């Protein structure tokens, strides 16, 4: 009898431990640096909790909530109506929670003499209407465009914010993450790309002012920077259990410090 009780107790312990595993999927913008850092801090305070974090693009995060394969979906864009509709068909209620604000910075090679662009010029460059730097006051040379891949929320957000949803130029090269874009632009004197705030202050690249405004905490929060956007956690309805605790931690003062430290803008306290 004692053996049976011991086995049941062990099974209960295993079950409890597995229940405390938090699966988070989605945006590379959030999932490459910010959420892993938050998770490490959270684990330090809650040793029984483990994390599985997969940062493969916002679309995968929203799909994971719809499919029930993650408790939290990271997204750097809003869920599309078709995604919300698909979720509702499965009885899932998409709940957006603003995690941080981000500005999508337009970056060029550090040696590029061009320092500012208008919104119209950005649209024309990324849509392929302008193909040479000389058209925007730069050194003559073909413009090399780097974008995120299609599963990225930043890919669709920038398309909506900067190119009026026009297709990117057919010559544009699609990169898996922000860090890859930074790396390519840093080594290509004719390169241009876009990255989240947390990735813009890297060696070898410079940030373009857009209509005279650069992405800063203030310009993103007061929305004077044209390519500012919120980033999200998505949950199925109001978060519960460990997911709720992690969301609360993210939005706590301690979490916000981490958000700011990584390079995002924390949502203001009400």
């Amino acid at each position: 009898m004692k053996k049976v009780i011991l086995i049941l107790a062990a099974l209960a312990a295993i079950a409890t431990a597995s229940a405390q595993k938090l699966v988070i999927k989605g945006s590379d913008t959030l999932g490459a640096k910010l959420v892993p850092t938050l998770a490490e801090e959270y684990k330090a305070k809650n040793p029984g909790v483990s994390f599985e974090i997969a940062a493969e693009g916002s679309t995968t995060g929203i799909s994971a909530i719809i499919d029930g394969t993650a408790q939290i979906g990271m997204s750097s864009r809003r869920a599309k109506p078709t995604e919300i509709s698909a979720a509702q068909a499965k009885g899932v209620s998409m709940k957006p929670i603003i995690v941080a604000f981000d500005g999508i910075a337009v970056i060029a090679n550090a040696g590029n003499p061009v320092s500012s662009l208008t919104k119209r010029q950005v649209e024309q460059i990324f849509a392929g209407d302008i193909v040479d730097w000389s058209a925007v006051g730069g050194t003559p040379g073909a413009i090399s465009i780097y974008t995120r891949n299609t599963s990225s929320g930043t890919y669709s957000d920038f398309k909506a914010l900067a190119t009026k949803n026009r297709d990117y130029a057919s010559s544009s090269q699609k990169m898996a993450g922000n860090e890859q874009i930074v790396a390519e632009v840093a080594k290509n004197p004719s390169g241009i790309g876009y990255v989240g705030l947390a990735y813009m202050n890297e060696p070898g690249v410079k940030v373009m002012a857009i209509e005279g405004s650069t992405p800063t905490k203030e310009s993103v929060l007061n929305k004077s920077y044209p390519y500012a956007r919120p980033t999200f956690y998505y949950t199925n309805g109001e978060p519960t259990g460990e997911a709720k605790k992690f969301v609360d931690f993210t939005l706590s003062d301690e979490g916000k410090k981490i958000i700011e430290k990584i390079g995002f803008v924390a949502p203001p306290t009400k």
Partner: protein
Amino acid sequence: MLHLKSKWLALLSGALLIAAPVIAQDSGPLIDILVKKGIVTDQEAEELRADLVKDFTNNSSAGKLNLSSSLVEFKMSGDIRMRYEYNDQGPELATGAAPLNNETSRQRFRLRFNTDVILQKGWTAGFALETGQSSDSANQTFTGAADDYGVFVARAYVGWQPNANWAFVLGKQKNPFYTTEMRWDADISPQGAYENYKAFFGAKDTFEIRAMQHAMQDNNEQVAGPTGRDTWMFEQQAVLTHWFGPENLHSAIVAVGYSAYNQSSLPSTATISPSNSPLNSAAFVGSVRAQDYGTFAGEVNWANLNGAGTAFKVYWDSSYNTTGGTRAYRVYGLNPTLFSKGATAWLTGLGYSYGTGKVQGDYSAKLDYRSVGVTSVDPNTNDSDWGLSKVNQKGWKLALAYNVTDFTNFNLTYFDTKIIQQGMTFALGNLDRSHELLVDLVVKF
């Protein structure tokens, strides 16, 4: 379910949700302004957006459509036509033979469904489905006991317009030429490659060069010689459109063109003689021999001549087959000297209308007279109703149309034709007379 956190948000949510199906997708800027003014927080705004989208997707099908972001415009349209058709016709008979009347009465319908999209960077594409497999008629006769009927692909095309001057279209497409039904039946969607150059001048005037390479018949290239070549028709046209009069409301169009085949399957002269006629005289079976047409068509429109919304027009079309004598001899086995006049076709007509045919109460009337010589038009493409698609006919067409509603038309059309030159034995040219009445009810959507 909304989770309301303030009076403002409650009021806003109530107002937006009442009209959610209409404005959900347009409410973004309004919500942004409320956030900027501090009336709602970013988080409240996001929850409101999400709830509006949920409500929108629940109450409208639009939220379930996942359309490509490359789309600039997605248009679906179509019409259903119910038709009563009566015709009587008689073939040419030997002198003294008893008259022969062939009367036909049919109840028919036509369904057309069009999808046309405008994409970014000047690209277009589209397709159309319709009843009726024949290229010159989408009509389907109501036949056996509650039969079902097939639907066919009537158009499938890709277009590209790099700038205002140039346009290109590939595939089965709407007829791009300025023409009348004397030469091109309105139901035909030609297939091939089309090129258009348009120059603009004056207030609204344009000058266009239109050219199309029509794929008319796919032949077996393994057959040696000309009969193994695919059959192509090459048509090109210069079209001048000039506007004149008060506020440039009147217009004139003049179109000069030339059309010819590659004559892929023209048999050698040695095999031809009047005694072995007719050779391949039927339409739509590769009747492509000796067809080289010079064409001249146009119209003059006077707007508001009899009060606002009225229009009067004079229009014409003509065609001359420069190899008509050869066609008469080598295709129909006729003596070319006797049938040299059969190389000309002409049409002249008058039209009067009120409105554009899109508003309840609009009406129009058109009357034309035409004469179509035996070798003067391409029997593959001419009007399938007038003279029952036969050549060697002359006669009238009267067409009346009235808009019962903005989307419903009542049409009445009557044709009356007679033979021009007697003594032809082949079916395409020996129709003595024909009368046809068409009564249509058309609903557009």
